């Protein structure tokens, strides 16, 4: 199973798509495809913001000694 994408990865991917869409040197078919990709990515990012939860992990180590 592949590791779920981090928000940073999705943000980087979105930045690339937006930059490429705005470069205006793409044909309309490629632009439409990239627009669709960007829209789907935005949906994924919105779902992440809605559903992802923070997790607290207590490290079981005694820092009062070297062991």
């Amino acid at each position, binding site marked *: 199973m592949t590791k779920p994408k*981090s*928000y*940073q990865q999705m*943000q980087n991917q*979105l930045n690339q798509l*937006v930059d490429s*869409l*705005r470069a205006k040197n793409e044909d*309309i078919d490629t*632009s*439409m495809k990239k*627009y669709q990709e*960007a*829209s789907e990515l*935005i949906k994924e*990012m*919105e779902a*992440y*913001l809605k*559903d*992802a*939860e*923070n*997790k*607290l*992990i*207590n*490290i079981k*180590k005694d*820092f*009062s000694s*070297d062991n």
Partner: protein
Amino acid sequence: MNNVVFGVSDFVAVFNQTLEFAYASVTIVGELANFRISKGRWVYFDLKDDYSSVKFFGTTQQLPGPLEDGMLVQVSGAPRLHNLYGFSVNVQFMAPIGEGSLKKAANLLQTKLAKEGLFDQDRKRQIPSFPRTIGLITSGESAAFHDFSKILNARWCGVELHLADVQVQGDPAPMQIVRAVEYFNVHHHADVLVIIRGGGSADDLAAFNSEQVTRAVAGSRTPTVLAIGHEVDISLAELAADMRASTPSNAAELLVPDKAQIALGLRDLQNTLQLEISNNISQTKKQIELTKKEINQTLLDSVHFLRQYLLATYELIEAYNPMSILKRGFAVVRLSGSVVSSVQNVKPGQLVEVQLASGQFESQVIKVKKSHHDKT
């Protein structure tokens, strides 16, 4: 008690045994005097008050940082009688105490570490925009931990917060914090290290002005964010961090964005992209219409040109039509069906056919006369 007679070495041994039994370790507070470091390793000083002075001996590893005479310090150590150099306390732990001494010690250390470049701005690294794993070094029971977690949970999501629960004040604090920093750097990956502690007195915050903690923060391979005490308290460890926050809550605010704002930004971006792609499509449509018009115009121009050309050609052909010439009064003379192009080809008495534009008639040659220019 009988007066026991000792040899000198025996006396030293017995005296030390007695001391070890009675006072294996003592803690003494006093003003630092005659402080000196020998050969970069051995440390000698006295602690004194208004009436007494005691000698101490230790190594540079035991020093909390740079010290100078006049500072109030607390020293723990083992009292010993040296066989050659007399009585001294062998240092086990020492630290400046009292606001004045702590401040002075911090100033001396700050000057030393600044010279080494530990606080230079060009050492500061970028903190990841969306950290996925945060290594948090603080007391798990502290208000600082609760404030940080509360703001973090309110602002962002999908984060793993790995807590290294350490003491953040008192003698054990510096080593525990240093070990926790090392642990994250060597054994336990985190995208960023956060070290926080709430407000307190100068003594409470002393660990974060210690040389060990400041060096550990400066040497961390993982980027660091520190928030120690209140906004007005700036510790040396904070100066060495990649980012300083004014409070633990502020550390969470600086570390992660507000997801509500980010969600709004995503909506705006989606709308903008939609508008841009619609504009793009309508531009393409306009371009297609324009191209269509240009093609039509080119076709019309071609047809017009061809018509003009055909007309001109027709007029040219018409100009060469023999009937047109006949209409102007000229005639074609034929003898036995062949055109007579020279008077030499006919003789008087022969019958010839004469064709005009409107018809033809037969004629008889009466006489033949040559033109002057007809040499044939």
